[in-house]
């Protein structure tokens, strides 16, 4: 059974703080993804990684960075959190070739 876990279900941070969101998958997938979900906008891809230490920008990378030091772990970093980054953050993984992605439960981040 595929498992993608995210470090926190709920997180409250202050404007300007550095925020780390962690994601771990146990299926030895090469590809990992970070999305944010906002009402009326669906899921939007922030960054993805197709191999350890490899990353590519998604559709909305501004204000975010990522780190993938180990195959099973993919971190999303908000360098200086802002209120417009309040959102649901979803991590996903998939094997190569990727047709289906497996999602974690999400982290609801509130920036005040």
């Amino acid at each position, binding site marked *: 059974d595929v498992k*993608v876990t995210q470090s926190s*279900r709920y997180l409250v941070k202050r404007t300007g703080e550095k925020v780390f969101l962690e994601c771990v998958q146990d299926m030895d997938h090469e*590809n990992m*993804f970070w*999305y944010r979900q906002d009402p*009326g*906008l*669906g*899921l*939007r*891809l922030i960054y*993805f990684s*197709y191999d350890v230490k490899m990353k*590519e920008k*998604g*559709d909305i990378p501004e204000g975010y960075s990522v780190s993938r030091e180990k195959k099973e772990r993919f971190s999303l970093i908000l360098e200086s959190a802002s209120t417009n980054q309040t959102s649901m953050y*979803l991590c*996903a993984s*998939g094997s*190569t*070739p*990727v*047709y*289906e*992605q*497996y*999602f*974690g*439960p*999400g982290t609801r981040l509130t920036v005040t």
Partner: protein
Amino acid sequence: DQQVKQNSPSLSVQEGRISILNCDYTNSMFDYFLWYKKYPAEGPTFLISISSIKDKNEDGRFTVFLNKSAKHLSLHIVPSQPGDSAVYFCAANQGSSNTGKLIFGQGTTLQVKP
């Protein structure tokens, strides 16, 4: 610019009837389409997919239809059950299938009434 659109934010159907969820896209280069289902407080789960070389794919109560000339796909659920009540997202593969870069629609909330 939204390349994948789900124009109906919500849909309500009676248990046992057919649910039809629609999705439109603009890029004819998309080669693979997927539907995901999402319950509150959970991540999306994969439901069904279709390659652009096909026009129909069926899996139990779920069937996805693809009309390439109209750039339209639809998900049919027959018969609908209360447990199908969730948000449904369509997605299109926008890059090489090796990396799985998906672009999602806005989602449609389906409510199936007992």
